[in-house]
């Protein structure tokens, strides 16, 4: 199982948990497992085509998976996945 950190804005759909565990050997499989356990997260995280929602960023060990292999990015159990809403940065 891999640790997944849930941002405050999505916790209501994830049993009010700050972090949850999910299984999968890719980011996509892991997110499928996650939304299987917490169905309310599906439409928040994924778009109609099964891709990542435009306003959701997913980081594997701190690196945005969109710049790795996207949903096909390989995941190990020791990794940490962080889900965050896209937000304006300081400027």
């Amino acid at each position: 199982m891999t640790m997944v950190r849930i941002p405050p804005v999505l916790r209501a759909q994830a049993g009010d948990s700050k972090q949850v565990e999910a299984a999968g050997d890719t980011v996509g499989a892991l997110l499928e497992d996650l939304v299987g356990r917490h169905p309310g997260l599906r439409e928040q995280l994924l778009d109609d085509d099964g891709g990542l929602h435009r306003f959701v960023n997913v980081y594997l060990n701190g690196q945005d998976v969109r710049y790795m292999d996207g949903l096909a990015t390989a995941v190990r159990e020791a990794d940490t996945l962080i889900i965050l809403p896209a937000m304006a940065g300081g400027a």
Partner: protein
Amino acid sequence: MSASPSLLDAIGQTPLVEVSRFCPNPAVRLLVKLEGANPTGSVKDRVARYLVEDLERSGRLKEDSVILEPSSGNTGISLAMLCRLRGWPLTVVMPANVTRERRQMLDIYGARIIESPGDTGSNGAVEMARALLATDARYVMPDQYANPANPLAHYETTGPEIIAACPEIDVFVAGLGTGGTLMGAGRRLREHNPALRVYAAEPMPGEMLQGLRSLDEGFVPEIFDPSAIDGRFLVTTAESITALRRLTATEGIFAGVSAGGVLVVASRIAEQMASGTIVALLADGGWKYLSEDVWSRDLEDEAVESLNLW
């Protein structure tokens, strides 16, 4: 060096300094561009100049206009300096939880401050400023998050300065706020070296800084094209400050907290490279963070993650 006709002409031409004692890989050269050397102490002087000149050229500013802009501090301070020189009144929408020095500097320059809720961070400031714009016809918003003049400032000044000082650049690292630096300097540097890679550092938002009500309030700056960079990394405040302290200790450089975050990413990339040259842009100096005891506070204390320091 010749005299500057005005402070505007003193913007840019910032130092590029090699930091070999800080760099974790001796086979890689790491250089930092010290944007704290700009007149108000940040990279945003470049942007503010382009934003105001864009407004003036476009004819959007009338005699009774008030410039209105959301900012977590640096852009507001730069605009405030510019507005002093050009004579425009300025209102800055700024999150309530930014460091004291940012408010002080805006006061010194005579800008009006409207506070947005701290827990919604820059998102809340952008939202409030865009709503205010519709309430008063005198307001004119440069809108750094959406205005192409922002990346253009970096395309025409930051990028060429880096190329002139370091034509051998392989990797460029900068912080992600509006995306202006990454887009503008990145595009110019890639024209110089098509194999160049561009990486973004972004702050991990603390629990107390994520007051979004729904994902639909999510925000991607209009000027930011995600496909124009090669990678993006989250950095915690504690990691950023740790790197910042090490930079001060090893190289004597006094920079702001986002500079620490940029250096965490630059170090991560350096460790993966066999050889090559990295340029990291350090957006501001350390002065505006003194009140938060950034160089001495306990980083084990999780409260540090809920400070608004970028």
